[in-house]
């Protein structure tokens, strides 16, 4: 093999491995780089999944929150009747839960259920209005379908696992992965501060971004693909098929939250609003006729700010005495 062709082949293989993000697994000997050795870089050893030593593992707690990909095991030391695990990823992730090994007694009343979303006190996120699936399809019971369908995927960046184990010694192991969602729709923010751009590309759907903290929202840009006639007075966005609304409430269900403001025309430039509720939501309603986009930043409201709002504001429903 000529030197020029050898160099080109090395550059080609190096580029492929780097661009696929697996360069950290390279372990090339400096002395001899044979074609066979170079081609082995693309062998089955460089699988899509990480090697065993790189998989994160830990035990699950009865009430837990998981944000890291890895393998999680729960072993009941005593009967555990009311357990739940929250899963959360980045806004552009969806959740994948795979049953690796399950040792429970389904006939004895044990169960493991995955919920597509979060549910607290009966209130669900995303709400039934905003989720593509009906409620009964959002619960996936291992005892019913686990053997046939060992992998359950969510529609957004949050999911939950409910389980009940009656016998000490019962256990299960699941693998939690995050998959890419190119157009995230319903999101729960991991942090009380950050920024996000929500895009609905000509889809007739409603999308919510939930911040489970009292927060100040600063909308930087809103692009609604409808005709903008500012001379036309807009008393309400109810008749508009495309708008953005700010919601505040003390539950997870966006359909039960209070509308703080709504905007149904495109604009540039920061518009700020403080919401002193446990849950602050930016929700976009889209008719499907246009590509709608909203960019915003959010930050946590401090204690003093909340006290000030409580004393001055008459419109913040969550802070009314």
């Amino acid at each position: 093999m000529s030197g020029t062709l050898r160099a080109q082949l090395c550059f080609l293989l190096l580029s492929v491995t780097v661009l696929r993000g697996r360069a950290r697994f390279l372990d090339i000997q400096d002395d001899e780089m044979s074609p066979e050795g170079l081609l082995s870089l693309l062998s089955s050893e460089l699988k899509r999944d990480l090697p065993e030593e790189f998989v994160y593992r830990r035990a699950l707690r009865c009430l837990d929150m998981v944000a890291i990909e890895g393998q999680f095991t729960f072993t009941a030391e005593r009967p555990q009747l009311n357990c739940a695990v929250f899963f959360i990823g980045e806004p552009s992730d969806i959740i994948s839960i795979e049953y690796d090994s399950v040792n429970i007694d389904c006939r004895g009343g044990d169960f493991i259920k995955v919920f597509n979303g979060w549910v607290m006190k009966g209130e669900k996120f995303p709400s039934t209005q905003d989720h593509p699936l009906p409620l009964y399809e959002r619960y996936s019971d291992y005892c019913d379908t686990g053997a046939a369908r060992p992998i359950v995927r969510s529609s957004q960046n949050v999911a939950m696992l409910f389980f009940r184990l009656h016998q000490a010694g019962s256990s299960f192991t699941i693998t939690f992965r995050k998959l890419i969602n190119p157009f995230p729709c319903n999101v729960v923010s991991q942090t009380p501060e950050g920024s996000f751009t929500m895009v609905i590309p000509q889809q007739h759907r409603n999308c919510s971004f939930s911040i489970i903290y009292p927060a100040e929202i600063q909308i930087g840009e809103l692009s609604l693909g409808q005709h903008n006639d500012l001379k036309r007075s807009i008393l309400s966005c109810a008749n508009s098929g495309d708008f953005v609304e700010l919601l505040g409430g003390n539950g997870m269900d966006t359909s039960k939250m209070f509308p703080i403001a709504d905007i149904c025309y495109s604009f540039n430039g920061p518009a700020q609003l403080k919401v002193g509720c446990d849950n602050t939501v930016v929700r976009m309603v889209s008719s499907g006729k246009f590509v709608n986009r909203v960019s915003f930043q959010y930050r946590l409201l401090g204690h003093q700010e909340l006290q000030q709002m409580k004393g001055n504001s008459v419109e913040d429903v969550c802070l009314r005495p």
Partner: protein
Amino acid sequence: MKLNVFVTTVALLVAFPPPYECRAIDGSSNQQATDPDGERQSLPLLARLGEEYFIRLGNRNQNSARSSPDDYSEKSQYSKRALQLQLTQRLLEGKVGNIGRLNGNYALRALDSGERERRSEEPPISLDLTFHLLREVLEMARAEQMAQQAHSNRKMMEIFGK
């Protein structure tokens, strides 16, 4: 030769965009992880604060949203937050049965066998949890994620250093 290399590079960049895993974490604020040294507290103090924590949880239905902003006072220090997180962790390990309970709603599903009929008649599952506790477990998960990211970065640096 150079043109061939350039064309090959462009073709590879178009065909293989950088994967998500290579991106640094962005879009969120870089809140500092809980200082593990701040978690060292004397046992009697933990027990006393633990009792207060349990009492608040016992009245969780009266725990209004207005009480939660107290936790985010400007005066809260690392030690207070670390202590709260440690209390939450101890709580989750031992006493969770007092917190969560099943809250039935509605719904019926298709019936097959006897056991499936019994299970499918059960209503969807929910969890009684305050936003305060939800935020606590969320912050624990974020701290764990940051620690794991730091550990992974160290591992990669060790590999590259070989």
